[in-house]
C-alpha cells in the first residue's frame, strides 16, 4: 500500500502547484488558455500517474517520478552560451531559439530575419501579441489526452517556442529550438514543461530541429509537448534530438497533424536520460498525406527508452513509413510500441513499420510491439521487428575482408545507426549527428567491454 500513498502525495502536490500557478503565474493569460489549463489539470487529477498495470505503461515504470515531488522550475537560470553550445547544431546559417527551463532566453538565441512573415518567437510573446495561429492551434492536437504528463504540461503552460511559416513561404533557414534544463539551486528535483508549437501553413516548407538537453549529470524531470501542424501540400522536415542528462527523466508527447498532400518527415534520436518515454503521434488527416517517422536510440548503463508511436490514417491514399533502430549496451532497455490505425474509409493506405534492435550485451533488453487497427479493406500495412546481438555471419564477412573483431563490430554497429542517419536530409545536422553517434557508439561498445 506504500506505493498508493506515494502516488497520491505526488499527485496532490502537482494539483496544489497548479492552484498556486493559476493564481500567481498565469494571471495575464487569455481566457481561452486559462480554460485549457483548467481542463488539463482536471484531466491529470482524474488520470493520475500511470502504473505498470496500465497496458500502455507495462514496460515503463515511472516510480522515480512518483517517489519524489518535483518542483516546477521558473525561468530563472544562469545557464550561459557555454552550457548550451554542445547542443547547438554547428550551422551558422540556422536560427536558434533557446528555451531554458521552459522560458525563452533571447540572449542565448540567434535570429536572422525571415522572409514573408515567418515567425520564430517565444510562445509568451506570441500570446501577448494574440497571434491568431496560436489561439487556433495551441493545445488543439489532443496531445494532452495522450498521457497524464501531456496534460500536466498544458496545465502549466506559460511560455515555450512558436514557429510559424505562412502560406506559400519556403523557409530555407533551418530552425533549431533548443530546450535546456538548468536545475540551478533547485537541487535534484527540478521539473520543466517545454512547449513547442510549429505551424507550417498551406504550401509552405520548413526544417525544424527540436533539441532537449540539460546540465551534465543533473537529475531533473522534463515533460515536453510539441505540436506540429502541417498545411495542405506543405512540407515539414522535423528532427527531435533527446540528449538529456543521464540522470534525467523525460516524458514527451509529440503530435503532428497533416492536411491534404502534406509531407512530414520526422527523425528522432534518443541518447540521453535515465528514463524516457516518448509518445509520438502523427495524424494523416487529409488525402494524399505522407508521414515518415524514423528513430534511433543509443543507450547504455541502465538507461531506458520507451517509444509509443501512433500513425493514424484518417483519410484515404495516405502513406506512412516508420523505421526505428535501437542500439542497447550494458543493462539498457528499449521499448517500441508501434500503433497503426487505419480509420474507416481510409482506403489505399500504405503503411510500413520496421523496428530493429541491436543488443550489445547479454543484459540489454528490447521489447517490440506492433499494434495494427485496421478498419478499411483496401490497404497495405506491413510491420517487422528484429532483435538480437550482432550477427556472426556478418562479423565473419567483414573479418574475411581484413577488419579485426573490434573494427568489424564497430562498422556493423555504425551501419545499423547509419540507416537512420541517412534519412536526415539537413546536411549540416547529419554531419553533426554522425559525429555524435560515433562518440555515443564508442561509449556503448566500451560499456560492453567492461560489462
Amino acid at each position: 500500500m506504500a506505493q498508493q500513498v506515494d502516488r497520491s502525495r505526488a499527485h496532490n502536490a502537482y494539483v496544489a502547484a497548479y492552484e498556486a500557478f493559476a493564481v500567481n503565474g498565469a494571471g495575464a493569460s487569455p481566457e481561452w488558455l486559462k480554460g485549457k489549463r483548467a481542463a488539463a489539470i482536471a484531466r491529470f487529477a482524474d488520470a493520475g500517474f500511470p502504473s505498470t498495470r496500465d497496458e500502455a505503461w507495462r514496460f515503463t515504470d515511472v516510480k522515480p517520478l512518483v517517489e519524489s515531488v518535483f518542483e516546477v522550475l521558473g525561468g530563472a537560470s544562469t545557464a550561459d552560451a557555454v552550457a548550451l553550445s554542445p547542443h547547438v547544431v554547428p550551422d551558422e546559417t540556422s536560427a536558434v531559439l533557446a528555451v531554458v527551463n521552459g522560458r525563452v532566453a533571447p540572449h542565448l538565441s540567434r535570429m536572422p530575419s525571415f522572409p514573408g512573415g515567418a515567425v520564430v518567437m517565444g510562445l509568451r510573446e506570441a500570446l501577448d501579441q494574440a497571434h491568431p495561429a496560436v489561439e487556433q492551434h495551441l493545445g488543439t492536437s489532443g496531445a494532452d489526452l495522450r498521457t497524464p504528463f501531456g496534460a500536466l504540461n498544458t496545465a502549466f503552460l506559460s511560455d515555450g517556442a512558436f514557429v510559424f511559416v505562412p502560406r506559400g513561404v519556403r523557409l530555407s533557414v533551418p530552425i533549431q529550438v533548443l530546450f535546456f534544463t538548468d536545475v540551478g539551486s533547485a537541487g535534484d528535483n527540478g521539473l520543466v514543461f517545454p512547449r513547442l508549437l510549429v505551424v507550417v501553413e498551406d504550401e509552405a516548407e520548413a526544417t525544424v530541429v527540436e533539441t532537449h538537453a540539460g546540465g551534465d549529470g543533473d537529475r531533473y524531470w522534463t515533460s515536453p509537448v510539441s505540436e506540429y501542424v502541417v498545411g495542405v501540400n506543405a512540407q515539414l522536415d522535423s528532427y527531435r534530438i533527446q540528449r538529456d542528462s543521464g540522470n534525467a527523466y523525460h516524458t514527451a508527447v509529440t503530435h503532428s497533424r497533416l492536411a491534404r498532400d502534406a509531407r512530414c518527415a520526422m527523425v528522432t534520436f534518443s541518447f540521453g536520460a535515465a528514463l524516457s518515454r516518448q509518445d509520438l503521434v502523427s495524424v494523416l488527416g487529409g488525402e494524399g498525406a505522407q508521414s515518415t517517422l524514423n528513430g534511433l536510440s543509443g543507450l547504455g548503463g541502465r538507461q531506458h527508452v520507451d517509444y509509443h508511436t501512433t500513425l493514424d490514417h484518417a483519410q484515404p491514399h495516405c502513406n506512412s513509413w516508420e523505421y526505428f533502430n535501437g542500439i542497447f549496451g550494458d543493462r539498457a532497455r528499449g521499448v517500441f510500441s508501434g500503433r497503426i490505425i487505419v480509420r474507416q474509409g481510409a482506403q489505399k493506405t500504405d503503411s510500413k513499420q520496421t523496428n530493429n534492435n541491436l543488443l550489445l550485451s547479454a543484459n540489454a533488453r528490447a521489447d517490440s510491439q506492433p499494434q495494427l487497427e485496421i478498419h478499411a479493406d483496401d490497404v497495405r500495412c506491413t510491420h517487422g521487428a528484429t532483435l538480437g546481438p550482432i550477427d556472426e555471419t556478418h562479423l565473419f564477412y567483414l573479418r574475411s575482408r581484413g577488419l579485426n573483431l573490434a573494427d568489424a563490430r564497430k562498422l556493423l554497429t555504425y551501419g545499423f545507426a547509419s540507416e537512420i542517419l541517412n534519412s536526415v536530409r539537413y546536411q549540416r545536422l547529419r554531419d553533426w549527428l554522425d559525429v555524435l553517434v560515433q562518440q555515443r557508439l564508442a561509449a556503448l561498445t566500451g560499456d560492453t567491454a567492461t560489462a
Partner: protein
Amino acid sequence: MGNEHMLEIHDLHAAVEGSEILKGIDLMVRPGEVHAIMGPNGSGKSTLAQLLAGHPAYEVTSGTVRFGGRDLLEMEPDERAAAGVFLAFQYPVEIRGITNAYFLQSAVNAIRKTRGEEPLDTIDFAELLDAKLKAIGWDDSLVYRAVNEGFSGGEKKRNEILQLSVLEPSLAIMDETDSGLDIDAVKAVAEVVNRFRSPERSFIVVTHYQRILNYLTPDYVHVLAHGRIVRSGGKELALELEAKGYDWTKSELVAAG
C-alpha cells in the same frame, strides 16, 4: 610458376556441431595455379572454402594447413585476409547502412594497417577504386549502394569480384561464384578471374557446374565427395564430369573405402 607451395593442406579433418564433414583432405597449390574443386551437394566443397577463410563454425579435428609457410589454422580471419587469403562468398552478406565504397575503404585500410602502411584517405581511395573499375570495365553503380542490400544474385556475385580486384589477394577462393548466374554473367566472372591471373596469384574455384571451366582453364581439377578428394586430374576431368555427372562418386567411394 614457382616450385614452393603457397598452400599445403595435409589430412584435414573438420566437423561442424560434432558431425565430421571433411574426412582427410590433401591439397597442394603453387603460386599462379588455378585449382577447380568440383563435387555434388554436401560433398564438403563450401566447408573447405569457408574453413580456409577462418569461418568460426568449423572445428578442425586433425590435419594441418600451411599458407606461405605459416600455420593458417592459428590465424584469425582478418590475419588471413592481411596475409592474402580472399574468399568470394557463395552467399554474400548484406550490410545495411554502409556503402560499398566505405566498406572497401575500411577493408583496404585494415589490411594496409597490418602491413604497416599508411591508410588511404577518401580521395586517394576513390582514385584507386575508379582505376579498378575502369580496369575491369564496370561502372560505379554498385559502389555507392549499401553493401549487397537489395542486390540481385548476380550483383552480389559481381560485388565479390569487385572486392577481389580491390583487395588483390594472393589466394582467391571462389565459393560457387558461378552458381545462379546466367551464361553472360558466368563469362564476366571468368573474364575478371582471367585478368587477375598472375604468376603470384592462385585460385581455388569451387563449383558445382563444369560451365565456368569453359572460360577459365584450370591447371587441376579435383573431385570432392563425402569429405574426401576422390579424384584429381587436369581440365579434361571436368569434361568427363560434365558427361558422367556425379553418381559414379558413390561407387568410387565404396571402392576407395
